[in-house]
């Protein structure tokens, strides 16, 4: 009864549908006995974690799939207690240190030392080292990344690191130089179609090309999204015939509503209403950058061509500020206020010439 995306997740390197060259390289790496630290990077939904698990299986055999979850308690130097969820098998341990925000360094230091200082006790194990998977490595603070550097070299015999990130830009150079960088690119449309058809075949129904195309275009290279949308569509209309509107997630429709209400009326009162809606989105764990992106895309779709560059410029401008600042709503609100002001001025024909250099 699980969702297709989980049901048909490949488990071995051989099952993987695309990036076959990468798969074979990973296979030979795990066979070589000299497995390096690896940094997997690529966009969300490209199959990074799937590949990592396949590689681990290649390294240790099926035992690595027997996962258990622990909640570990770490104590910061200031005495604060942190709960961190850790997923592990006998051969590897996976953690997401960014869950604890700025205290991630403590988690990294504690866990890595603990793993690194104990040797593999299972004599039947295929490898002598354990693997530590660090999720969202690009969200690690500088301190935490610095804490990784030395441990990576020092405890090489007992431990290998696999870092998983969406981009390498936020990972400090010393770490990058100590890792084998593996880029997992998003699948192209053909590859996605292959996967979708594979799933359809397994589910024993026919996937029409039109539906397949609309799914691939809606998912934008995110295979997870594609499969989820695929299943949602199938639930909506089992025959998948004709023109099917791809179901939008709740937050996306809500963002669209926000964008519409911005374009509908531009007053301080309306901005106040929009603020309420933005709070609603943020408090329900929709990341602010996603909110900003969705809203501005919707606005750009609807406004006059002359305004488009301005809207995009301001979206980028405030997104940067949002990343630099701490209270995201301030910047989102400033963005909305700016868009309202620009839009209203243009409606009244009083817009000043826009200078891109500012």
């Amino acid at each position, binding site marked *: *009864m*699980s*969702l297709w*995306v*989980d049901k048909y*997740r490949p488990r071995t390197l051989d099952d993987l549908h695309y990036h076959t060259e990468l798969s074979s390289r990973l296979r030979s790496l795990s066979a070589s006995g000299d497995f390096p630290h690896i940094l997997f990077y690529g966009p*969300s*939904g490209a199959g990074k*974690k799937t590949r990592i698990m396949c590689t681990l299986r290649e390294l240790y055999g099926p035992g690595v*799939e027997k*996962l*258990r*979850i*622990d*909640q*570990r*308690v770490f104590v910061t130097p200031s005495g604060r207690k942190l709960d961190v*969820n850790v*997923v592990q098998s006998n051969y590897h341990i996976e953690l997401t240190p960014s*869950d604890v925000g700025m205290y991630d360094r403590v988690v990294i230091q504690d866990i890595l030392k*603990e793993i690194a200082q104990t040797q593999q006790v299972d004599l039947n194990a295929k490898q002598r080292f354990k693997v530590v998977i660090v999720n969202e490595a690009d969200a690690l603070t500088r301190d935490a990344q610095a804490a990784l550097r030395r441990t990576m070299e020092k405890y090489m015999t007992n431990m290998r690191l696999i870092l998983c990130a969406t981009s390498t830009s936020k990972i400090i150079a010393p770490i990058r130089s100590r890792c084998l960088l593996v880029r997992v690119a998003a699948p192209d449309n053909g590859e996605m179609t292959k996967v979708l058809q594979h799933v359809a075949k397994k589910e024993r129904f026919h996937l029409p090309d039109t539906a397949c195309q609309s799914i691939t275009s809606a998912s934008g290279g995110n295979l*997870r999204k594609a499969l*989820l949308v695929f299943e*949602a569509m199938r639930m909506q209309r089992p025959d998948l015939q004709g023109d099917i509107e791809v179901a939008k*997630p*709740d*937050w996306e*429709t809500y963002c669209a509503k926000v964008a519409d209400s911005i374009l509908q009326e*531009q*007053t*301080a*009162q309306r901005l*106040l209403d929009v603020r309420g809606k933005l*709070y609603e989105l*943020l*408090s*329900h*764990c*929709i*990341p602010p950058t*996603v909110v900003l992106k969705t809203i501005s895309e919707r606005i750009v779709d609807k406004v006059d061509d002359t305004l488009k560059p301005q809207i995009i410029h301001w979206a980028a401008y*405030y997104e940067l*500020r949002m990343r630099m*600042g*701490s*209270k995201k*709503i*301030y*910047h989102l*609100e*400033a963005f909305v*206020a*700016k868009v*309202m*002001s620009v839009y*209203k*001025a243009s409606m009244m*024909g*009083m*817009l000043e010439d826009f200078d891109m250099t500012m």
Partner: protein
Amino acid sequence: MDNTPEPRSPRRITPSTSIKKSKPVKRKAPDEEVDEFKPKKRQSMANRGPEKRYVESSSEDEAPRGKKKAPSPMEIEDDSDEDDMDDFIDDDEEDDRGKKSKVKSKPPAKTKKVVMTKKETKLTPVKKAAAKVAAKKEEDEVQEPEEKPKPKYNWAAAKARAEAGPKAPGSKEIPEGVPDCLAGLTFVFTGELTSLGRDEAIELAKRYSGRVTGAPSSKTSYVIVGENAGKSKMDAIQKKNIPTLTEDEFLDLIRTRHGAELDEKQLKAQEKEQKKIEEAAMAMAAKEREEEKLRKRKEAAKAIPISSQLWTTKYAPQTAKDLCGNKAPIGRLLDWLKDWDKNFKSGFKKPGKEGLGIFRAVLISGPPGIGKTTSAHLMAKEAGYNPIELNASDARSKKLIEHHTNIDNASLDGFFQGAGAKTTVMDMRLDSKTCLIMDEVDGMSAGDRGGVGALNALIKKTRIPMILICNDKSLQKMKPLINTTYGMPFKRPGPNEVRSRIMSILYKEKLKIPTNVVDQLVQGANSDIRQVLNMLSTFKLGKSEMSFDEGKALLKVNEKNTIMTPFTIIDKLTGPYAFSHTNRETLNEKAELYFHDFSFVPLFMQEHYLKTLPARASKEDGPLKDLKHLDLVSKAADSISDGDLIDRMIHGSEQHWSLLPIHAFASTVTPASLIYGSINKPGYGGGFGPAFPQWLGQNSKQGKLSRQLTDIQIRMRLRVSGSRQEIREQYMPLLAGHIVSPLMDRGSDALDEVIEYMDEYYLSKEDWDAFVELGVDSMREEFVLKKIPSAVKSAFTRQYNKTDHPIAFHKGDLFAASKKKIADIGPAPDNEDVFEEDEPVPDEEEEKGDEEEDIDVTKDRLIKAVKPKVVKGKGKK
């Protein structure tokens, strides 16, 4: 854009031209320095985009409509410079005035033209300095030397200006009247005056002993009407036929009116009061002498000489007559004390005249410094009781109260049984004529555990009167006392009630302070008599006379001790005239407000900045006004956004605390300067005035939901590889179609299916609730829960609890609580070993089961319960 010039052009042409001409002339004429920068600014303005030009032109053509006009948005930019300048001018002027007023008895009456000249000179610091020098040299002839260094005086400009009315802030000469020249007059101010701020005008009236009230009444002598006067006030004025004055007329009144216009009755009253004061002072002096004698007699006992006592002790009220204000409650207190024995005998059954008879204790409440403790002591003494005071310096825990006051044994009866048994409170002997004063009852806190409860028990049994004193009886912890005590709220005494007392003390101390200054002090200290006395006694060390300005300065010095709440700060910063040309506070003073509470004020500002009707946009009409408003709001939002970046530098890893002043401007002062104005729709956001920032609530809600999301993610982790965000953004909308929507659409029929899905992803019922809570828009929690009938909800809960479910893992705390043994083994990291011991058991079972089903059961005692469920699921496949 093509159509814009059309509406613009007709506006621009006609009446504004004359004004346009006259205005630059006005400004330029008196001085070159002004010349230097003004034209440049104008030019640069003209170069700006069409929008700005529009604004300018429209503001200019409004000038002829209203005679006096507030600056247009363009001018405000200039004003900021001028404001600063004016602040300096004002300070200097006030100094001058202080000096002058002492020397001069009466300034010569000035003609209007002379006023004009002075007005002009003020615009430049150079002239101001010249004037200052001149003023110092020849204080008696202020005006003449000023006119001399200015040969080319443009009379035409002055005339034009007189017609248009002065616009520049502080442009009018503040006249010097005869002291007390406004005595006996009552003023009401309404609307925005052109050159004086509201506070300044009020202060000016008070300086010359005028009275100022808030609303016009039949007693009002004059109403000074400014721009945009309130309609209700104007109606009332017309109805009551009260004479009105303009600002100029008001200033003229001060200039020309002679103080001695008191009729005989008033004079008599004044004399009488003076006499009373003197008498009181004499009495005090007599008493003091007596005490001094007494002291000398028992010098061995080393009493402190009275002259070295604090004023607050020295002039502490000695009799009921000395107490200021609160006459009624004090009288009641005395009655109650006198009747106490009678009431005690009747068992507190007879309520008596005012219902006081049924209480064994009273609770006096009120702000500090208004004589609560003093009243209690005095009344107790007056009623013949011997007061014993316990205050916050004594520990008053339950144990101590019970122990020391012996309420639980019979020893309180001791004093009735003769000399043998002693009853004590805190080692002080009690007798039937003792009155217990519990001071600062609301100060009973952490250390005094159960103190209030024990006190309440004591009150119920006491055989002596008890007087409890607190500042705030509405506190939660004071609740138990409300029913057992007679509440006696004390109010701050008004300046009238305090005045004579203070005056007699001053007379005695040979301090010469006029009545209006005393009133000002009392008012400024919020009728806190103690603070006024402390201020005066400090002042006495240096001087023996106090002028109005010195009083003001003294108050200002003492004012700093109070911390304003963010609500008042925001009110002050964004009030209708907060940044208008009549406001005299410097930017730094405004930034100072931020430091009252620098973590909260920015939040309040962010909450509030959309809720005003900006004064800067008030000159526009219709859509233009909206546009201007939006423009201001957008600029304010940008500034707040800047503020957040600075905040990050302060509170982030770098800890640049020196940036705090910059943060003050970016986060608070700049937005306030843009959007100040009256509040849009009073009561918007629940209640008047600034609302409490939503950010705090929303942030903690976000924290809570993101913790729940982390929980959901880690439970689903065994099935799903996605991160938190991916789960929220991509999985949840689809998964909702499997575990939430079926309940909405199909009700109870879908239960089995829903629970099966939840088990597949290891989601518990609590996770389901969190899941629903995380939805937005059409999946909003309220919306979803409304759509699921309550019968289905309860069936869901029942069904879920009836069956067993796989659990991904145990939460650490749950685990430790249920299995103490494991928790005892060691700290958390050791848990790993424990699980490994468990390992063989699930392994065996795992082998029996299908390889595909790799549910994590390794450490789970519930494994046996889970297994059948899993097998069932497989059977279906």
